[in-house]
């Protein structure tokens, strides 16, 4: 079965992971910009990172027949420094026309601070001015509920933003309804210890339906599993779900959302 990995940080993964993804049926991988695990030294570091996402990673993926797409931003973990944020945001427009860039992301909040909120508003403004899709990161653990509410308010307050062009990621049982009720798409991240397990993610699908939900591994430099999505598909099979329902969640839903960006094509350019 073919599937799309809509959220993976491949710059942190070895090339073998691309091969494993391809062997598991993955046809495209989408990579939001994120925190490197340490704070970058300045805007030059982000410029190099955006080149890596738009020039280098598509070539690594193509070796295994995978399409590679990306999202650009400054991660909320680096948003306390408003000067750095303004400098990095000024770099982004020059990359937006590159063929694998899908939009602005993963923006959002981390600790729900005032500066994080200000930088989120700056990113939303950037996306609106350039008519870009938006991918939102919601905070971790105890900060998720509050952060999700603050993020939803920022999006609602900007009248240029169409809810169906925004995916809000890392939802769990206490945030998924908030997101779907606002008309956004919602992503569920499958992690070994935090966020969702495959069983819980499928519970959420059974409860809220499959209309605007997708699954991702968000594999990165931390404890994570690049094959989490096909493993969730196996769990759906164990529960007796139809292949058509599994394909809808793992392939057709991400394709439907991402195709709102005309650059998202699954065939080779």
């Amino acid at each position, binding site marked *: 079965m073919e599937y799309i990995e809509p959220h993976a940080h491949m710059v942190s993964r070895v090339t073998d992971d691309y091969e494993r993804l391809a062997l598991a049926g993955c046809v495209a991988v989408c990579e939001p910009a994120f*925190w490197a695990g340490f704070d970058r030294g300045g805007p030059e570091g982000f410029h190099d990172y955006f080149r890596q996402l738009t020039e280098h990673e598509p070539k690594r993926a193509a070796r295994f027949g995978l399409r590679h797409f990306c999202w650009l931003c400054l991660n909320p*973990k680096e948003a*306390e420094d408003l000067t750095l944020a303004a400098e990095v945001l000024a770099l982004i427009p020059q990359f937006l026309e590159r063929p694998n860039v899908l939009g602005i992301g993963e923006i959002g909040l*981390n*600790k*729900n*601070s*005032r*500066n*994080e*909120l200000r930088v989120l508003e700056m990113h939303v403004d950037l996306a609106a001015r350039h008519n870009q899709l938006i991918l939102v990161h919601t*905070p*971790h*653990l*105890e*900060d*998720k*509920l*509050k952060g999700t*509410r*603050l993020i939803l308010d920022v999006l609602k307050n900007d009248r240029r933003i169409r809810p169906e062009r925004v995916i809000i990621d890392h939802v*769990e*049982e*206490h945030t998924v309804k908030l997101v779907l009720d606002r008309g956004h798409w919602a992503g569920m991240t499958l992690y070994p210890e935090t966020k969702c397990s495959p*069983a*819980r993610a499928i*519970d959420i*699908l*059974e409860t809220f*339906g*499959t209309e605007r939900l997708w699954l991702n591994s968000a594999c990165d430099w931390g404890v994570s599993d690049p094959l989490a999505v096909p493993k969730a598909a196996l769990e759906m099979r*164990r*529960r*007796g*779900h*139809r292949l058509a*329902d599994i394909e809808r969640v793992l392939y057709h839903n991400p394709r439907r959302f991402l195709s709102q960006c005309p650059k998202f094509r699954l065939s080779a350019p």
Partner: protein
Amino acid sequence: MKRMTRRQVLDLYFLDARHKLIEIAAFLDRVGRASGREDFRARAFRRALRELNGRGNDRARRVLLAFSDLTTEPIPKATATGACGAAGGGG
């Protein structure tokens, strides 16, 4: 989407859930045997445990709420990048 019968759910998940429940019991025993004072995480954990006996089929949501920061205003400044899993630590 089609849901499983209760029998099917138990067949598929009972042993796994039993295993996790015993792990939680052992964790609480470990905390009980240890020296020193408990902190906000242990208190949040006990609050969350109470949700398991509640009515309704939204226990996972209520457990997550028990660990959540329920304030609504942004904090003045982020002094740490990580989260610890329970509100009340001042992070």
